[in-house]
């Protein structure tokens, strides 16, 4: 008997004991859980306070007639209807989209620079620093300098073009050339940042892949297209996404270089238009509607990019 099942009391005790132990453990971890919850609550609260609430507020504001200082009057979707009919909204949106041309150009130049500067060449640290300086320089100061550089008569850009026999346009005063002028400036300003990220990505590509490719007789172009380019794709994806988001919010350079929106409004970006509507023309409700449409457009474009990127994902076994 003694060797068979343990006495019933023992079983009962064990259950209680387990329960008590669990209770003790729960009590012991309660404090820990509390701290964990507190740590988790901080970003959640921050997200609610600084993202969710403002977004909810913005959505409501976009449905109101609001001058930004007085009371809001709910008007349904009137602001959105107005937006569809507003030629300046479409013009500003077109200008903003046009500025995106600079993204692939900038990335191509950055990658080329990164490839060049990843080689052991003389003065590469110097060049890396030089290319990065615009990134850390004040955008306002840079915009003013480029304004001078773009001068039609004696500007640096046209002087350089004159050396090769090209009679440069009056960049910022010409409705055809004002947007390209701003794109060139933006590419120059952002190039160093993209270059640095590409540089890190290029240097992280395992050498063994190139060695294997060499053994298989691959030339430089093949190595670039089959190894380097796919390997730096995550960085390209990151840069495209962030550049599109950043590019859609282009404002400072427009406001400084062409404060009235440029010749025939050719440089007015959407954020510049939104800012004018909100703070100069007391149409905060309408401006918020435009801002939300811009946000949604950026969200859609970014989501499409994520989808395309997923389709192109690969891994090295």
């Amino acid at each position: 008997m003694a060797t068979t099942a343990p006495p019933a009391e023992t079983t009962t005790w064990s259950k209680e004991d387990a329960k008590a132990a669990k209770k003790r453990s729960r009590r012991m971890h309660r404090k820990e859980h509390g701290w964990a919850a507190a740590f988790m609550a901080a970003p959640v609260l921050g997200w609610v306070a600084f993202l969710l609430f403002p977004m909810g507020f913005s959505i409501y504001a976009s449905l109101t007639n609001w001058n930004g200082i007085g009371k809001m009057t709910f008007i349904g979707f009137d602001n959105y209807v107005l937006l569809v009919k507003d030629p300046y909204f479409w013009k500003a949106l077109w200008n903003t989209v046009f500025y995106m041309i600079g993204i692939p150009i900038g990335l191509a130049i950055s990658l080329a620079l990164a490839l060049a500067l990843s080689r052991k060449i003389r003065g590469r640290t110097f060049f890396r620093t030089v290319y990065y300086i615009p990134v850390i320089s004040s955008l306002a100061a840079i915009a003013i300098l480029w304004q001078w550089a773009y001068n039609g008569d004696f500007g640096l850009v046209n002087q350089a073009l004159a050396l090769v026999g090209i009679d440069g346009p009056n960049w910022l005063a010409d409705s055809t050339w004002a947007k390209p002028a701003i794109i060139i400036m933006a590419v120059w300003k952002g190039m160093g940042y993209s270059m640095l990220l590409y540089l890190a990505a290029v240097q992280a590509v395992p050498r063994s892949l190139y060695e294997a490719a060499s053994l298989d007789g691959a030339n430089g172009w093949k190595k670039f297209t089959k190894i380097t380019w796919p390997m730096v794709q995550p960085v390209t994806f990151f840069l495209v996404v962030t550049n599109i988001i950043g590019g859609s919010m282009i404002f400072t350079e427009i406001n400084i270089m062409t404060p009235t929106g440029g010749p025939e409004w050719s440089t007015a970006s959407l954020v510049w238009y939104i800012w004018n509507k909100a703070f100069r023309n007391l149409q905060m409700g309408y401006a918020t509607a435009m801002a939300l449409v811009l946000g949604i457009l950026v969200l859609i474009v970014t989501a499409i990019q994520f989808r395309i990127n997923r389709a192109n994902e690969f891994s090295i076994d």
Partner: protein
Amino acid sequence: MRKIKAAAITATMVGALTLAACSSGGSSGNASEEPDTAGGTAANQLTFMFRGGDYDKLAYQAAIDAFEEETGAEVKMIITDADQYATKLQAAIAGNKVPDVFYIEPGKMMGYVYAGVLADLTDYVGQDVIDNIWSFGTDAYRFNTETGVRGDSADPLYGLPKDVGPFGFGYNTVLFDKLGLEAPSADEPMTFDEFVALCKELTVDMDNDGELDHWGTGLNVVWNSQAFVWGAGADWISEDQKTVTVDTPEFAEALQWFADLGLVEGVTPSVEQAQTLDTYQRWMAGELGFFPVAPWDIATYNEKAETDPENFGYDVIPYPVANEGDDWSTWLGSLGIAVSENSANKELAAQLATYLSTDLEAQKILAENKVQIPNLIDYATGEWIETDAPAAGWPANTKAFLEIAESKGRPLPGVWTYTPEWYDNFWIGIENVVDNGSQTAADFVASKQTEMQSLLDQSWISADQAKVTG
């Protein structure tokens, strides 16, 4: 799950970057450095939010010290960068932290009054005080909330002037002497023809190298065409502020004349030349005969005249008019001092606003340092114009500034309407008229009329809505 994760990452990324962009554009400091703009709560506490340079601070500190001593009040000064002031004030209002006393632009006044932000100061400011301020300085802050009419001396007063800023016209005295030209009259305006004739004489190649060294003038159309359009009897808007009037023949003629200064007469630097060294710099370098002169320029112009007397000297004259006998005018700016409707100490705040606008010592400091002409008529037209202004280095014909403040000054178009969008629209495409001449002024104004009128109508609709909703 992956889709949700991707969507969440996307949304967070977009949101975070949007927020980052907004914050970076808004302020140079971090949030913890933002001063509390809320009005004082204790019986004697006031906050005063303003923008300005060192001299403004110096003058207002003197006025506030005197005010504190006289009333026992405690005034907290909040000074912001000029380019951030309007945005910060709007944020303070939206956040219900309105300072007791603050600067207000006359162009934004209507919205603020309808929103119940501004206190009616009519009963707090004595008639004797008002009578001693330039009428434009007070009329710019008067507003009839029922009719939407601005500038009528019988309407409620929602602010007092920090200053009135006459946008005068001047000439380079040294260049005139150098070329042996007779100086323009300090009292009588030139006609447009006389002005062009003089400009032609001023446009010369001094060293015969084939390049012009001096020009008659070089005027930015956005800031300088008003005086010439008004001088030709035209205007952007009707007196009741309800009809856009740019499509009149006299308007088109005046604008074409202005454009032809560069395009036909060739008396201004070309667009490219103006871009290389803008016309302000060329004026300072002694290359232009005529250029605007305003009180805020005086200190810089004096310094230039002192350091480069061989090329630069200046004085103020009336703006040219189309025909002999026409009345000249120019625009007159202003910045106001308003009181919060919800101030816990409204009467004391109104007293402070009055002090800041009219304290003699503060006015003396501001005028002595060439920040502004005095607001006080008795001081400006007496002791100041007779002795203080010449002693401080104001130009010989400073009385032209006083004349503008008294009777020749007008608000910029768009300042007295609910929003200036209709007026801003006029400048879109103006380069086709004045820079490259691809469009005539007549075609341009005809093409602008409908759109500007529609925006003006919208401005009135918005004003009516604001009147109802607050």
